[in-house]
């Protein structure tokens, strides 16, 4: 079970967050964390001390935007959404990641395409 912040590389988390927001659209921090947990089959617990600085960083870079809103459970929460620059960035990082992953896969001798 990998959940301490050391286990997620910074760039990886950024990519995860961007991809999540692309898939689901506008989402609050809890939602993002839940989604990452579900997708990873509970393998990934994202610490707040990792997630929120990352969210702020992405926002500072202009890739995501945020605004206060109301959650499904009627709680006030900040909703994050992908910006146009974020979409471009996501495309770049996805391509990067694919390339890295295929190199790693070949290097490690599995010979098969990595699963999305």
């Amino acid at each position, binding site marked *: 079970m990998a*959940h301490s*912040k050391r286990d997620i590389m910074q760039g990886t988390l950024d990519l995860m967050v961007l991809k999540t927001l692309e898939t689901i659209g506008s989402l*609050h*921090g*809890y939602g993002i*964390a*839940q989604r990452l947990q579900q997708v990873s089959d509970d393998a990934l*617990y994202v*610490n*707040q*001390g*990792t997630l*929120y*600085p990352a969210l*702020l*960083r992405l926002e*500072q*870079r*202009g890739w995501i935007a945020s605004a206060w809103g109301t*959650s499904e*459970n009627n*709680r*006030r*929460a*900040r909703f994050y959404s992908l910006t146009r620059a974020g979409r471009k960035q996501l495309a770049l990082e996805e391509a990067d990641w694919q390339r890295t992953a295929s190199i790693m896969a070949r290097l490690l001798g599995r010979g098969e395409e990595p699963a999305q």
Partner: protein
Amino acid sequence: MNLRELASRIAGALGRGRSDREIAADLAAHRDELEAFHLRRGLTAEEARRAVRFELGGEVQALEAVRDQRSLPFVDALRQDLRYGLRMLRRAPGFTAAAVLTLAIGIGANTAIFSVVDAVLLRPLPYADPDRLVSLGERTRAGDPERVGYATFIDWEARSRSFESLAVMRSFQPTLVVNGEAERLAGVRVTWSYFEMLGVRPALGRTFTQEEDRPDAWHEVVLSDGLWRRRFGGDPTIVGRTVVMNDLPYRVVGVMPASFPPLISAKYYTAAEIWAPLGYAVGVGDSCRDCRHLRAFGRLRPGVSAAAAAAEMTSVHEQLRAQYPTQYEPGSVAVVPLGDAITAGARPQLLLLLGAVACVLVIACANVANLLLARSELRRRELALRVVLGAGRRRIAAQLLTETALLSAIGGACGLLLAAIAMRGVSAVAPQTLPRLGEVGIDLRVALFACVVVIVAAALVALAPIRQASRDDLRGQLAVDSRTTAAGAGRVRALLVVADLAIALTLLAGAAVMLRSVTSLARVNPGFDPNRILSMRIILGGRTYAEDPAVRAYQTQAIEHLRALPGVAAVALADQIPFGGDFDCRGFHVQGRMKPNAVDDPCIQRYGTTPAYLSVMSIPLKRGRFFTAEDGETSQPVAVVSESTARLVWGTADPIGSVVRIGSAVRGPWCTIVGVVGDVRHEDLAAPPIPAVYMPESQSTDSFLVALVKSSSDAAALAPSAIAAVRQLDPSVPVYGAASVAALVNGAIGERLFVMRLLAGFAAVGLLLAAVGLYGLVAYGVSQRTREVGLRLALGATSREVLRLLLSKGVTLLAAGLAAGVAGAVLTTRLLGSLVFGVSPLDPLAFGGAALTLVAVAVAAHVIPAIRALRIDPALALRHD
């Protein structure tokens, strides 16, 4: 980190990012949702909370991590340090006040003096390529650069190759009458290329042409910006207009810009307001080789040094001397950079003051270091605690440095304020002879200097506690009794106090030597009684006074008008007076005693006076008689000499009855010596009297006159009525420069007074700071040993024994400070050089007085700690923490 991120993090550091509250709300919302989720899954409240904490980590840590991302962590740390530092400073107001005040005084005094030094010595002259401008002069046998004759200047121009251009000037003091109000203007007549040589352009119109610089036609003038605004209302159509001065029409051809400072004039420090062409030609008027009254300037060719030019000019001088042996003395030509020539007189004093004020800064820094050391000792426990709680050494050092920098910044700001005030004071007491004083002001360079001083001071000051803080085993300190002192720090502090005392004593001794010099100078008898005499200047110029009879008539009437005023005891006229800033040295050729070459006859100071001069000035008559009303234009020409003239020319023989020619050896009347009078000092109280000769105004009239009015009470009070009386006689005659003769004589000690006052001020400040340092150390020592004292008292020690124990350290320090200070003073008072008068630079009275003052102040610094030590209650002291 991309640029956008950097920008928003900088904004965040400035407090414009997302607020803590917003972040916390976001984090809390997340936790609430998760907790609700777990509760829905059937966990108990306690289990849900634990699960949240497990999955999300600590809330405080998360907030901290987001904050770090929001801004730049080191800025936050700095801000934290600053806030903490400010709190620490506020919590110790006594320490803060002492440190800030000490720094402010050190920095303020340095900035003020540096401002003066900068304006007077360092700032380049405001001309094009000022480095290539030089002042030239024939060096006399005495070694002083002299003025030159016009014919010499023409030969210099023709024969030298070192210069791009050369120029000469003479004084020019026309009387301008506008709306019936006469005013004498300060000005110079210059060779036509003068402005071009300096590389300055007029703001309006033009400067002179070569055709305008001729004996028959030099009726063009250039005005200064100040004169143009003052007398012509800044009229933009002034160029081409004619103004009448001394009954002659002059055409205004140009106006100089306000930025053109009239540094160069006949006297460097009088501000020229008007320029006219020199209008000389060889063979006409005062153009002869030994008519040495022109000041010469030159612009060196690029790459030519002043020394090379001097060598060339000296060889030119030798050629001229070979050609005209009777008109040149053997010697050389001085070529001095113009900046040096202008400031030569002020340089030693200013550098001296700069040194003195630097001493004050050293004392100030030592004192602040001492204060910080003492404080860091008191704070060892706090620092140790912080180390134990996990603060890194670098973090603690940064904290201490921040605190010190904060202190220095506050001290620097206060110092700048103090400097602004002090500079007004310095300008007020500075002698008028200090060149370029008008340019003094806190400018960017001075502010920069202040900052450098602050930073250096901060670094010096910060060094001590930081080194100590990192050297100490801070963890160990927690266990140790907070009252014990590190022995090393104690030694450093003692050394600092000794240095303080020594420097203070050095300054004190310097000030005392200057005080003794000024008092012995003030006691010098000038040879006349300057009290109750009002002097004012009159110029009889223009067509009205072109002939002698008109001048004589005016003189007689002026004396009558002034005598008639109430409160006037006697009135005299003279062409120049001692300490009036005048100089009229003339060749003195005695029949039968003339040298083969008339150049070798002595040059004697010539005073043209009316008969009452001797009694008005209270100059004693030694032999023969002074002038009377019978000495007129038709009677036998007469002259009176001073005792030193008699001694110089006749030795022990009687001069009365000898006949002399004054000025030219070949022209003019032969005057019979009819009397001998006492010597007077002409311009310097510190110099021996110079030989003088007196001639009656009735036989050789002067146009530039000084009226001397002896009052029966206060001279200055007489000025308004005296000026009015002379104005009434002829409003077109300018009357100016009214001053009491006593004030003029006092002005002659102004330079020394200036140095003495500043040195005394610095010494006082240095002494005060040293006393504070000493007091701090002794008082600290007493407070550190309270328990020990209590124990001793409880065990039966007498108060005398306790006092000796506590104060012996102070006495040792004082003794060391005295020894070092006397050594320092012996080495430094000789730097006062020629400013010392009438006493030795090692004057025992001055040294003794300085040492006594230091001892007295040191004793005073011990009194409070001593009283406190004696009041220690043994019972309380033993429980003292």
